[in-house]
């Protein structure tokens, strides 16, 4: 069994390394300018993003991601709690929520530019926030709906005021699922950042991707692709760590509850 586990670990490390080596060897032999060598890409990556264009392009992209994600989270929870608690409000909102969540985001790129008269942060953040809203909103709504009605009734019969009920009962009960929604939103925020910057902008990693492609600088283009991949990966890792901390009480509670 231990031999098997050691083999598993070895494979886990070896396979990614082999893939990278294969990429390097293939690009070295292919001699095509569209696929520069992996080593060339990494040199370009260091040259471009460590840290020449970090302040001018990476930071603005991160700002847009976090601003849009932050607005979406606050709005999603603020809307999701009342929608989860009231059937009437939910019936009122459902057609809109279902329609907009199913809308392919790029369809609204031109509209967001026309309506906001901007291709700067205002339009980018609004676009990111709009589409990141739905995972948080839907998860909050469903989580609030799923709270045991006995708990709410008990709190009510003990005359716990409504704002205390929301703060101490509804939000903590819904938190695990809200955070699940936030994780989806964060992944979505990276995608929306790339789409909106690639469509029209004057800074950001999506803009660098577009410019390097249009000027046939394929090393920097691949470097931008790797950067965006790393960004998506690292933000997800950071969020998992955050989730682990915030939900520590929840895991302890679940572990103590007999299933």
């Amino acid at each position, binding site marked *: 069994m231990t031999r*098997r586990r050691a083999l598993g670990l070895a*494979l*886990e*490390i070896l*396979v*990614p390394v082999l*893939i990278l080596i294969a990429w390097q060897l293939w690009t070295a032999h292919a001699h095509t300018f*569209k696929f520069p060598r992996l080593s060339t890409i990494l040199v370009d990556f260091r040259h471009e993003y460590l840290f020449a264009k970090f302040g001018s392009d990476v930071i603005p992209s991160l700002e847009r991601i976090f601003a849009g994600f932050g607005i979406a989270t606050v709005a999603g929870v603020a809307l999701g709690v009342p929608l989860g608690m009231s*059937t*009437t409000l*939910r*019936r*009122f*909102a*459902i*057609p*809109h929520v*279902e329609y907009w969540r*199913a*809308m*392919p985001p*790029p*369809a*609204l790129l*031109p*509209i967001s530019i*026309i*309506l906001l008269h901007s291709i700067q942060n205002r339009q980018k953040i609004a676009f990111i926030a709009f589409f990141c809203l739905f*995972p948080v909103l839907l998860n909050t709504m*469903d989580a609030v709906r799923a709270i045991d009605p006995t708990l709410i009734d008990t709190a009510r019969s003990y005359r716990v005021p409504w704002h205390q009920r929301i703060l101490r009962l509804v939000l903590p009960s819904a938190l*695990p*699922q809200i955070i*699940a*929604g936030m994780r*989806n939103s964060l*992944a*979505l925020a*990276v*995608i929306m950042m*790339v*789409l909106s910057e*690639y*469509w029209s902008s004057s800074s950001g990693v999506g803009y660098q*991707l*577009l410019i*390097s*492609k249009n000027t046939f600088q*394929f090393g920097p*283009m691949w470097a*931008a*692709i790797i950067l*965006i*991949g790393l960004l*998506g*990966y690292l933000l*997800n890792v950071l969020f998992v760590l955050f*989730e682990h901390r915030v*939900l520590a009480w*929840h895991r302890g509670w*679940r572990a103590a509850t007999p299933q």
Partner: protein
Amino acid sequence: MLAPEQLADATGSGALAAAPAPRFRVSPAGVLIPTVSVAASLGLWELISRTNTISQHDLPAMSTSFSALWTLVQTGAFWTAFARTVRGWALGLAIATALAVPIGIVLGSFDLAGRAFRVPIEFLRPIPSAVLIPVLFLTLGTNLKSEVFLATFGAFWPLLVQTMYGVRDVDPLALDTGRSFGLSALERLTRITLPSCVPYIATGVRISSTVSLILAFTAELFMGIPGLGQKVNFASSFGQTDQVFAYAIAVGFLGLAIHLLFSALERRALRWHPSQRRGTS
């Protein structure tokens, strides 16, 4: 692309926890209130535009947008574009399913295979598929192949991960029982593993159906591949704002139709599942 909703289920109660429930039951109020709500918001849109609260140049009135859509749907060009988008979506979803389900079953069944590809999958999954657009420009070109590749790439990951989770969740007792009754590996696959996975795969297909449409449309919009996305691109380049809105409305309805269809399919697949579980344990 989109992280699978089910994986993000922090409650740890398994990949099926976030299955969508019907959000309202049919009752007089359940029909009336949504209808009033839609009518009110359409009216508000008309009002905002007609009173020039937002200039009509930027926000064409609701009636203008819908009449532009009405004019469009009477043209053959609209339906050709529509059919092309649907074709890109369907091919992307079909190819992704054909690839992700078998690969997911292999990676889910064999622990070593799963571990070997864990890191590449974890790294590739969160990458926004849109970054591949420049590469597709250079390699496959502005044609259906690029569109289908992009849609397939995006739709592949949620399906793969869902299938892997589904296979790992198969009741080991059922597999052992099958083995001791002398079922061959193939029979165990078709009679135990696959049926147990169906709900997970259905959830994956629902998520991927949306992702595939988004990416088919994205490819058309950004790369100028014929379809609704290309039409939006043209309309926006020529400043035909009413058409930009009309196409957005149409794409929204296409997305809604796909979402409702696959949610219904998923509910069907799930209805079967709990009863089966109760029977075996």
